[in-house]
């Protein structure tokens, strides 16, 4: 375990170095969140009751999304891992007494967390101070706040576990472009990062909420804003745990198979 922790640490420290990038990221995400809110505001003005989330719920959702962007963006994948597979530096990674799956898992978690840590607090603080209804409101009660933290962590791990499958696909395709493109367009849409899932047509939403994509950012953010509560919270948590285990299980199997026929590129 120590070895994975040290790997996590060196990655994490490495990620904290890029302060200018973090500053630029904070500004981008703040402006982006503001623009989204203004756009939704225009729709809400015409008929507030026509929407599945109240405007203040939506504000909380959007600010959380911007603050924790680095933890939940599917397309935010490790360039190093792709180039290790396609360029052949995988040879060194396999010559270590470590499990490759755990090694990459720890690495992806560290990169995402170090980015999120630098960005989340400033955005959250500004979002709390904004005038109503554009601000982030406090969670409904302590239970839903607790559930928010639990599903936030599990959702984050689900995102990393899912990205492992995208890395493993690269063993076969040998080019990360296709994987990235799909992750960027389709998966982002299905996770509710373009528009929150409650805005989808009912049948589509019902189906989507059973997929692993709803267990990522959708669940913790909607619990925080109070859009999911009570027994529904528990049901969603169980779905989330189910997917998390299944994705890790599948990822480990695929990894094992890929490593059996691995070819080190470039001699």
């Amino acid at each position: 375990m120590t070895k994975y922790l040290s790997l996590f640490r060196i990655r994490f420290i490495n990620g904290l170095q890029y302060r200018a990038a973090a500053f630029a990221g904070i500004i981008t995400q703040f402006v982006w969140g503001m623009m989204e809110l203004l756009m939704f505001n225009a729709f809400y003005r015409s008929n507030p009751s026509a929407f599945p989330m109240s405007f203040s719920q939506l504000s909380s959702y959007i600010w959380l999304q911007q603050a924790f962007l680095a933890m939940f963006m599917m397309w935010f994948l490790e360039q190093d891992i792709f180039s290790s597979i396609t360029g052949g530096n995988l040879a060194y990674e396999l010559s270590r007494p470590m499990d490759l799956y755990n090694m990459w898992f720890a690495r992806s978690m560290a990169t995402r967390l170090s980015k999120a840590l630098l960005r989340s607090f400033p955005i959250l603080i500004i979002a709390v101070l904004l005038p109503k209804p554009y601000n982030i409101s406090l969670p409904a009660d302590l239970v839903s706040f607790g559930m928010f933290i639990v599903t936030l962590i599990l959702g984050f791990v689900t995102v990393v576990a899912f990205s492992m499958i995208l890395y493993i696909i690269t063993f076969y395709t040998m080019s990360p472009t296709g994987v990235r493109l799909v992750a960027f367009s389709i998966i982002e849409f299905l996770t509710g990062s373009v528009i929150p899932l409650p805005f989808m047509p009912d049948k589509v939403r019902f189906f989507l909420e059973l997929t692993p994509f709803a267990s990522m950012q959708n669940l913790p953010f909607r619990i925080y804003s109070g859009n999911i509560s009570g027994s529904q919270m528990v049901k969603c948590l169980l779905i989330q745990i189910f997917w998390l285990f299944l994705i890790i299980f599948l990822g480990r199997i695929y990894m094992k198979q890929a490593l059996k026929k691995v070819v080190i590129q470039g001699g």
Partner: protein
Amino acid sequence: MIELRNINKTFKVAKRNAGFGEAAKALFKKEYTKIEALKDVSFNINAGEMVGYIGPNGAGKSSTIKIMSGILTPDSGQCIIDGLTPWKNRKEHVAKIGVVFGQRSQLWWDVPVIDSFELIRDIYKIPKNIYKNNLDELTSMMDLSEIIKTPARQLSLGQRMKCEITASLLHDPKILFLDEPTIGLDTVSKIAVRKYIKQINEQKHTTVILTTHDLQDIEELTQRILLIGKGRILLDGSLEELKKRNSECTNITDLVVSLYEEFNV
């Protein structure tokens, strides 16, 4: 220590002719050719030996090294190294070996070399006092104590190669695999790297297997050479024996060229 029996490995290689039409055709039907990288490779290496593994490009040297270090799985055959099969017990096996790939780097690019060493210490769970002893011993041997404070990206190739080899020795491996450790180095650095490898073999009794195209490396380092061509082991013997066999060759370059001709590789 190392025992290989009838190892075979084939690779599938995608092939097509040049041109747009051919590329379009390849979208629908890819043609693969099978390349036999290793055919029936067998040899034994004893503990403490230093063996030179030579052969032309594409002969299967690197594939053999990768099989022995648990990275590649052969199609068939047996390989027992210190009681373990590398691709079946990969994690236990690699904890006991050190590998250097001359064309790649294991050091973290942006941080001082010493940080990479410490990560390696944690990965191999090297006890603190052993790590310190090894580090002191290795750095004084190669005069690296200042160099390791520098980020890897600012080192010269020669300095970096010394650090790469040091990184692979911190955990006291029983076996050291060196895949072209002198590639791209100037003469002075080559001599320093050779001296280093020799010292390691003599003082720590580490078994060393090295591949190289530099015949000077072979002449100065190894007693025994394995010659591989087109995936087959062609010769296994001492340098002296080989020289006797082809007595008309005065230097080792001629010797190898004549062996290539003799075996038609």
